[in-house]
């Protein structure tokens, strides 16, 4: 199944963001969404930065004391500010963040998020995700539709420990854009060339197909 590249996934997620929004990005792929926006979006990083600039890729210019929550060196731009984690989580728990884009190991039909403890003998790592989900206005999951081993990640019930219950409002994968609704998972966009059956095959809950189903908005 030919899905979006990681860059296009980030671009699709970036399209959800509107000028003036305050946005927190999870570690890994979500953290790269900041490199795909054009409007003034203010990114907040839980390690203590607000309004920072995109990733620095030039090793010469990297400053290990100026990093985002993925520990990737980022840049400064006018209006940036720095603070401690206590202030950072006031913003996050306090409802000041409009959107969080996070990764996940599993998402359930009801929007439960599981993104720690993949295996019993691996140390679990909730990091700041639990705190973030408790306060942010909208949680978008950005992830590959299935695992590298082809295992289904969008499930009826999470088999992994839940990081936050019923918080996910949208799932963006390399294959589809799905809204979590009261009635169930609403398929709204799909990667060009993929059939409905194909996307259902790799999604455990029965997908409701939107009347306005369309190809990915990129």
């Amino acid at each position, binding site marked *: 199944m030919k899905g979006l590249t990681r860059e296009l996934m980030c671009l699709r997620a970036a399209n959800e963001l509107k000028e003036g929004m305050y946005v927190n990005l999870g570690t890994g792929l979500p953290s790269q969404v900041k490199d795909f926006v054009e409007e003034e979006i203010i990114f907040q990083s839980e390690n203590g930065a607000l309004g920072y600039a995109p990733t620095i890729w030039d090793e010469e210019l990297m400053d290990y004391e100026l990093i985002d929550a993925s520990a990737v060196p980022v840049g400064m731009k006018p209006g940036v500010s720095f603070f401690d984690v206590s202030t950072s989580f006031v913003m996050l728990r306090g409802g000041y963040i409009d959107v969080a884009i996070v990764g996940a190991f599993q998402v359930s039909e009801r929007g439960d998020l599981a993104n720690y403890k993949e295996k019993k003998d691996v*140390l679990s790592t909730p990091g700041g995700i639990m705190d973030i989900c408790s306060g942010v206005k909208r949680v978008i999951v950005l*992830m590959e539709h299935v695992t590298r081993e082809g295992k289904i990640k969008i499930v009826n019930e999470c088999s992994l420990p839940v990081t936050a219950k019923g918080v996910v409002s949208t799932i963006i994968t390399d294959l589809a854009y799905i809204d979590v609704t009261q009635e169930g998972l609403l398929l709204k966009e799909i990667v060009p060339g993929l059939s409905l059956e194909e996307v259902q095959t790799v999604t455990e809950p029965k997908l409701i197909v939107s009347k306005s189903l369309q190809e990915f908005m990129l």
Partner: protein
Amino acid sequence: MINKFKNSPEEAIADIPDGSTIGVGGFSYAGSPLTLVKALAVRKVKNLTIVGMTPTSYGALIESGSIQKLISPYPSWGLKARHLNPLEELWRRGELEVEIIPMGSLAERLRAAGAGLGPFYCPVGIGTEMERGKEKRVFNNKEYLLEFPMPLDYAFVKGHKGDRFGNVCCRLTTKNYNPVMAMAAKITIVEVDEMVEPGGIDPEATHIPGIFVNRVVLTQEKPKVDWWLKQVVKTKGRRVDEGAD
């Protein structure tokens, strides 16, 4: 004359006994007090309880076998990248107790201890494993868990500049847990890049006022970050850590 400067990290940490609870600042390498951690690792103290964000900060104390219990939001951070780090192996063998704690709740528990407050109700972790053993209570139709203050015997803190009163400023994203660790500890020891005269730190940007600081020493070594920065470039920032993406 007030003088919190100490001549060496060894002198600054000399009195720390076995069994102490020590908070270690830092998030990845940013703001990690590596000089103090290393000096304590050399002393081979035992049975420490360590509170801190990432093993990049407190790793030397794992390697020295000094830790009995680790309280951390992200103990797996960077483990894959540092194959020799025995943390996970020790944990699997039951030789190291690991308590996982959400990042923000940790910050708030440290602050509450420093602030002389009692327990507080926090919405984080409702409906998850974090509920276990905690009092749950509803206010205004919202569920909360009762979280307790987390006092520390010592805090290891990394600052940028420090003066003899103990005032400290921290560069950019190195603040992270350092101010709340300093608040929560009976004895706070800070390593700084530069010792300055009083007045050398902006009074409007004194991130840790001297009242929270007991001892100040010079940082002796910069962390070796080259491998990490190279990996960021090589993997396009995909998997620096072991978080879920």
